[in-house]
C-alpha cells in the first residue's frame, strides 16, 4: 500500500510539473513525437511493402519457355516432369498466340512490336505455380537445373529471383530507417533529459528541503522519472494520433503513387502501436534517469 501511495504521489507531482512547465514540456513531447512519427511512418511503409512482397512471393511462378517447333509430345513430357515435385500446385500451358495476346493487353502502347511477324514472335511457355511454404530451397534449385537441361526448354524465369532482390532492398531500407529512428530517438531522449534537468534545477531548493526532512533519493526523483515517462508516452501518443489522422483523413486524397498505395495497405497492427508508445515511454524514462544520475540533482 505504501508503494501504491508513493506511485500515486509520483504521478500527481509529475502531472503538476508537466502542467506548470507546459511550454518546455511541449517541446520535449513534440521532439519525441516527431521522432516516433517518422519511425511509425517507416514502420507503416515497410510493413505494407513486406505484405505486398509476401503476396507476390506467394503468387510467384516459374515460367518455362519452350523452344520453337517442339512437338506436342515433348511438351507433354516436360509438363509431366514439371508436375513431379510435391510443391508444384499447377502447370498451365501458354501458347505462343496467347503470349502475344497477353503482351498486347499488358503493353498496349508498344503492341506494334508483336505485329507484322510471319510467325508468332513470342515463345510458348509452361507456367508452373507452386506452394512457397512447401518449397525446399536446395531441392527446388536442383529441380530447376534439371528443367533447364531439358532439350525442349529454351529459357526459365524464376519469379523468386526478383522477389528476393526486392526483399533485400526492403531490408536495407528498413535497416536505414531503423538507424534514422534510433538517432532521432537518442536526440529526443537528450531533449527530455535536458527538460527534466532544467525542471529539477528550478526546484533545487525544494529538493534540498525534501532531503533535509529525510526523503530518500527515490522519493525525490520518482516524480521526475514519471514526468519523463509521461512525456514519452504523450510523444508516442502524439505520433500515433498524427499517423492515424494522416492515414484516415489524408491518404484517401493523396495522389495515386506506388508509395501512397503501399502506405494505404493497412494501418499499423495493435502490437506496433503499443511498440511506438512503449518506445516513447522508454526514451522518456531513460532521459529522466540520465538527467538525474548526478548526485547534485
Amino acid at each position, binding site marked *: 500500500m*505504501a508503494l501504491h501511495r508513493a506511485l500515486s504521489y509520483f504521478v500527481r507531482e509529475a502531472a503538476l510539473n508537466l502542467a506548470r512547465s507546459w511550454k518546455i514540456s511541449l517541446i520535449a513531447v513534440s521532439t519525441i513525437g516527431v521522432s516516433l512519427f517518422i519511425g511509425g511512418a517507416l514502420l507503416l511503409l515497410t510493413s505494407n511493402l513486406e505484405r505486398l512482397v509476401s503476396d507476390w512471393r506467394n503468387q510467384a511462378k516459374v515460367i518455362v519457355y519452350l523452344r520453337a517447333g517442339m512437338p506436342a509430345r515433348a511438351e507433354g513430357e516436360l509438363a509431366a516432369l514439371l508436375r513431379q515435385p510435391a510443391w508444384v500446385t499447377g502447370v498451365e500451358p501458354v501458347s505462343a498466340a496467347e503470349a502475344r495476346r497477353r503482351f498486347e493487353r499488358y503493353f498496349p502502347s508498344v503492341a506494334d512490336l508483336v505485329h507484322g511477324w510471319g510467325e508468332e514472335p513470342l515463345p510458348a511457355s509452361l507456367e508452373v505455380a507452386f506452394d512457397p511454404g512447401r518449397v525446399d530451397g536446395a531441392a527446388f534449385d536442383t529441380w530447376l537445373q534439371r528443367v533447364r537441361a531439358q532439350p525442349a526448354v529454351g529459357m526459365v524465369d524464376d519469379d523468386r529471383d526478383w522477389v528476393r532482390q526486392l526483399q533485400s532492398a526492403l531490408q536495407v531500407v528498413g535497416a536505414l530507417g531503423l538507424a534514422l529512428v534510433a538517432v532521432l530517438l537518442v536526440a529526443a531522449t537528450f531533449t527530455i533529459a535536458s527538460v527534466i534537468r532544467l525542471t529539477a534545477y528550478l526546484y533545487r531548493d*525544494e529538493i534540498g528541503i525534501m*532531503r533535509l*526532512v*529525510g*526523503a*530518500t533519493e527515490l522519493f525525490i526523483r520518482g516524480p521526475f522519472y514519471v514526468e519523463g515517462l509521461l512525456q514519452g508516452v504523450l510523444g508516442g501518443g502524439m505520433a500515433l494520433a498524427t499517423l492515424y489522422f494522416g492515414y484516415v483523413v489524408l491518404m484517401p486524397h493523396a495522389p495515386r503513387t506506388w508509395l501512397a498505395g503501399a502506405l494505404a495497405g493497412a494501418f499499423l497492427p495493435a502490437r506496433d502501436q503499443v511498440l511506438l508508445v512503449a518506445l516513447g515511454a522508454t526514451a522518456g524514462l531513460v532521459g529522466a534517469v540520465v538527467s538525474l544520475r548526478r548526485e547534485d540533482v
Partner: protein
Amino acid sequence: MIHFYRVSKHYPGGHRALDDISFQVERGEFAFLTGPSGAGKTTLLRLIFRQEVPTSGQILVNGRNVASLPRRKVPFLRRTMGVVFQDFRLIPRKTVFENVSYLPRVLGFDGQRQKRLAYETLRRVGLAHRLKAFPLELSGGEQQRVAIARALVNQPEILVADEPTGNLDPEMAREIFELFLEINRRGTTVLVATHDTRVIERLNRRVLALRAGRMLGDGDTASSDSSAQLAGVEPALSEAVGG
C-alpha cells in the same frame, strides 16, 4: 544523544570551519550554540544532520556514527531529528498541510494518518486553522511555526535549530523559544544556534560557545558564578558574541 569527539572541518583552500571540537549533549537536554558570524555554528549543525562530513573526528548522533554513515542511510538519520532554519525553508508551492505532512507521506502513512499527524502538530504550534494557507500568506513567525511543526511531525528525538529567530521581531522570537522549551519539556533534545545573548541569558540553559571554529566554553549562564565547571563561559560567551 549528540557526541562530538575531536571533530574538525576544513574546506579546500585551508579554511578551518571547525577545529578539534569535542562536546556531548545528553538526551532531553536543551543547549544553546552561540558565537559570532563565521564561528562555525551552522557548520556544526550541518555536521549533525549530515549535510556535511567532518574532515576528522567522530560524531555520534543517537548512537549512529554520522561521519561514516553511508549516503543511502542519511535519510533515515534525518527522520529521527527535526531541523529548523532561520529562513524557514518551506516549500512555497505547497500548503501548510502539505509542508507538514511531507515526511509522513515519505514514510508511506495513509492519508488519514498524514492528516491527523499534521493537524495535531500544527495545533501544538497554534496553527491548526491555517492548514490550507500557502507559506507566503503567513507572517514570519507563523512560517517559522510551520517549519517547527514540520520538524516535529515525526516526533523526533532531536531538534536542531539554526538561528530560528534571526528573521523575527522580539515578541515572535519569544514565542518561538517558548515553543522550543515546551518541546524540550516533552523529552526532545534541543540544540539551538543563536547569537541572541538576551535569550540565552533569560532562558538560563547550557551554552556551547564557539569562536573561529574553536570551542571557547561550555556551561550554564545562570550558575556561572558558582560552578567551577563553567568558569570562563561568560567571558567566552561575551567574547564569542562580541558583547
